[in-house]
């Protein structure tokens, strides 16, 4: 029966918004992997749209195309990850900006915004319990009974005489 499911338009709008968010993320983020995730987000938006159409028309084709996009995404992910790994090995960073030397020869580089390092929070590391305890020492304690027993002057002898 028509109208028992949310109308097609809703799916299309969700798909469109996902696609747009993917584009925005792709344009703004600099991390290679996040950029790629944003591209996948765009694919997801498309998939939502396709499935919406499929449901609307009751034909399998939309789902079939969504499955194709899924397979495509998998292939893409494999290649992209391999590329990222190689790029990371060379550049020690996932930042796209370090690959600006791939631009055309006559183009100026785009200066990228940088930021300061995050201030490191002062960490208070816990102290482990000591392995063993040493008794408290006072170098003078040992002499005390002796001295108190000693009368004024010398020649006094403790004990047996």
């Amino acid at each position, binding site marked *: 029966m028509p109208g028992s499911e949310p109308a097609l338009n809703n799916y299309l709008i969700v798909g469109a918004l996902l696609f747009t968010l993917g584009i925005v993320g792709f344009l703004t983020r600099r991390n290679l992997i996040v950029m790629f995730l944003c591209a996948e987000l765009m694919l997801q938006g498309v998939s939502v749209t396709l499935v919406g159409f499929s449901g609307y028309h009751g034909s399998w084709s939309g789902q079939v195309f969504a499955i194709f996009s899924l397979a495509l995404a998998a292939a893409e992910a494999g290649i992209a990850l391999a590329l990222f790994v190689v790029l990371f090995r060379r550049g020690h960073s996932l930042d796209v900006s370090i690959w600006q030397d791939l631009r055309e020869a006559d183009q100026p580089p785009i200066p990228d915004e940088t930021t300061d390092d995050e201030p490191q929070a002062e960490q208070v590391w816990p102290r482990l*319990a*000591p*392995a*063993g*305890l*040493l*008794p408290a*020492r006072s170098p003078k*304690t*040992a*002499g005390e*009974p*002796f001295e108190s027993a000693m009368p004024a002057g010398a020649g006094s002898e403790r*004990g*047996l*005489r």
Partner: protein
Amino acid sequence: MQPDSKQIKWVDEPKLGLAGRLYLTPLIDGLSLTARHFFRTARGEGFTRQFPEERPLFGNPLIYRGVHRLNKDEQGRVKCVACFLCATACPAHCIDIIGTESPWADREKYPQSFVIDELRCIFCGMCEEACPVDAIELTSLFDLTGASREEMVFDKEKLLSVYDQTCDLEPMRSRGPAAHSGPPPGKDH
């Protein structure tokens, strides 16, 4: 070391037979072994001893090296003369002594504090060997546990109380006098 070094002796991998290559026989061997043990224990032929109820038996408790004790002399005073020889002999540096003038007329020096870190101790018995007055001995108490590190650091009182606990069961190795026995107190030359 390089792989072609003369010092390396290369041993060829043992050649596996058909069954070995399949890994099947070892796998079945493993399964049958555990099954055998399972049923043996299930028949009640296990080796486990129920510890707190069944105490383990020592051949000779006098040569067992368990918790330390500080022996007392006939008058109930600590026998130790704070000579530090046990601390010197200790390979684990777990003994810490503070010596001082003794309050008794027939003794020069005695331990004001005598501390053994039982956690650090390796129970080698060297302290017992080193002691010239047989003051420190290792008992057959083996189930030494504690809830904190501090608790496992035994001070003089605790070590003496170990003696009180074990003196009936395990007599002192020697009942002789302390390191040197002078003439009875009160007599001059």
